[in-house]
């Protein structure tokens, strides 16, 4: 396995790490049980070197890298990351990076995908499908995919309104605790974690959406990050892990100091990490103890593409 991995920087992407998969996450997945996460970290330590994100950059800047480097990145700002992943990484004397959406952290908005999962758990998916019929959702469409590809203000309103109708006030209130609060993020930052910008509310970057809208989402989150950690983040992490080349270009042209972080399921070629300002991450198989090797091998093969 070690022979098959090309030297490079592998940023492993997780979302939540927790023993629990509540109705808010049940239908969208992405939760990694702590024991599996611990096994993944252990496996990576046998395949190469574990590094914090900042240390990874420093190592690459120093000169050629002749081994695989592994770092851990968590999207969406779930509280489970601080609770379960942080202590595991601390055992290896490294930290990770967490990408946060400002409105989830402040509790002003709940992640719309979580609402979608809750509605499905509560048996209200059919009701939502009927309401989305006027926006072109057919009975054969997958709600999960339709809501991403056709995302817009009307569709968001439909999800929000139905959620308020279906979920009790207690459920709505408790849902906020799934995310880290500003104080908790500050404490992670003080421990050396990278707090990255994942936009204000995780809206998909749709084709045809004005560049300005995308930028505003990231700028709003940067203002929030500045208020809690004293500076905006140099890392803008694309919601859903993708961004059209046009957006990437628009952002990197406008901001010299920003690095765009995507998914791409490939490792990063060390020589290009600093110059390209676009980083790729590898989606870790969150509930598969034995699937990490396959994902990494594929990421290694794709690295030079």
């Amino acid at each position, binding site marked *: 396995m070690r022979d098959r991995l090309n030297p490079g920087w592998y940023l492993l992407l997780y979302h939540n790490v927790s023993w629990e998969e509540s109705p808010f996450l049940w239908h969208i997945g992405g939760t990694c049980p702590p024991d599996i996460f611990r096994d993944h970290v252990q496996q990576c330590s046998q395949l190469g070197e574990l590094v914090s994100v900042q240390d990874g950059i420093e190592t690459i800047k120093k000169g050629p890298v002749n081994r695989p480097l592994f770092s851990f990145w968590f999207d969406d700002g779930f509280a489970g990351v601080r609770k379960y992943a942080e202590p595991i990484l601390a055992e290896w004397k490294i930290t990770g990076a967490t990408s946060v959406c400002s409105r989830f952290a402040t509790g002003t908005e709940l992640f719309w995908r979580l609402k979608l999962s809750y509605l499905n758990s509560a048996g209200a*998916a059919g009701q939502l499908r009927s309401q989305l019929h006027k926006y072109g959702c057919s009975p054969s469409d997958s709600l999960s995919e339709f809501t991403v590809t056709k995302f817009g203000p009307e569709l968001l309103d439909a999800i929000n309104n139905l959620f308020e109708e279906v979920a*009790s006030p207690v459920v709505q209130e408790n849902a906020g605790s799934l995310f880290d609060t500003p104080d908790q993020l500050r404490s992670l930052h003080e421990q050396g974690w990278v707090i990255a910008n994942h936009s204000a509310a995780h809206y998909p970057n749709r084709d045809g959406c004005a560049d300005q809208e995308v930028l505003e989402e990231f700028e709003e989150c940067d203002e929030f990050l500045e208020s809690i950690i004293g500076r905006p983040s140099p890392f803008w992490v694309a919601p859903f892990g993708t961004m059209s080349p046009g957006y990437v270009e628009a952002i990197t042209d406008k901001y010299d100091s920003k690095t765009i972080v995507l998914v791409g399921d490939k490792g990063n070629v060390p020589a290009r990490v600093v110059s390209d300002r676009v980083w790729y991450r590898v989606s870790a198989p969150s509930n598969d103890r034995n699937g990490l090797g396959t994902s990494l091998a594929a990421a290694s093969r794709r690295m030079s593409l």
Partner: protein
Amino acid sequence: MISIRDSKLTLPVAENYPIVMITGDALRHERFAMRMQAEFSDHIVAWLQLATAERKVAQDQRSLHNSAKKARSLLSKFLARRPDRSPPKIYVESALPQFGSKPSLKKVEQRLFGKEVEKLRETCTLRPIRVESIESEDTASRINRLKPYFILIFCYPTCISKLRACTEGLVLSQDDARTPECKVDSSVYWALYHRDLSKITSSIRLWTSGTDADFVVRSSTPCFAVDDTVESCFARQAALGTELMCEVVGDLIKSSTLRLDGYRKIGGAAMDTEPTLDVRRDVESDLRRGLIQRETARKMRF
């Protein structure tokens, strides 16, 4: 006085909240006690550990293990003597797990929690006090002397009335299905038999009256792994229950209130029907054919 009104549980405010824990002696129980110490170190005053229940289960498992050993040996002898009439290899492989080749719950717990508990032991200093019975006068008077506000139970509470009388605060318990009365984690078996992972839940119960009547104050579903077995599903259920207990106690200490959603008063502790051998075989066979992987993918298709 505890009040439950408008989906809200309110407790009398106290100056401090002494906690007594009562657990079994398996690794999942030790994890429970360690996690509580890590979260509420200033409040924990005692950890009572029951040996009886687990010992009985262990004895049952030992006899089962011995029978399995004999069955495996007979099967091997039969195959060695009659190569011409050997059943196809695939049948042999599918038959062997039914003769005890699956990892025990103890091994599964070690795999899931071993390293975490090892780490927790470094900082948790309170050691358990062994007690023979949860119902004895001795245990009750021991707890009474400590004047606990919370009694947290992670073992099967057969009779709670004596414990209930020991506190003005709350008796909370985490479900632990593996008990002397119910030797298998039936709820996990039945959920898997119906291929419904959402039915594998962890709950925190509030014992109000000292009899069988109680409330479920928090309940949720664990996160599964694709290679899970009945035993690992059960261990995940236990791990989540411990985390839910931390949340419930933390909320109560912080605000003396707990928002309850959909809490329900439940009746007497009815015993689940034990899964029969054919049910167990179906479940094991489903698991070998990737039930969890399929169900995990299916629940995300909507």
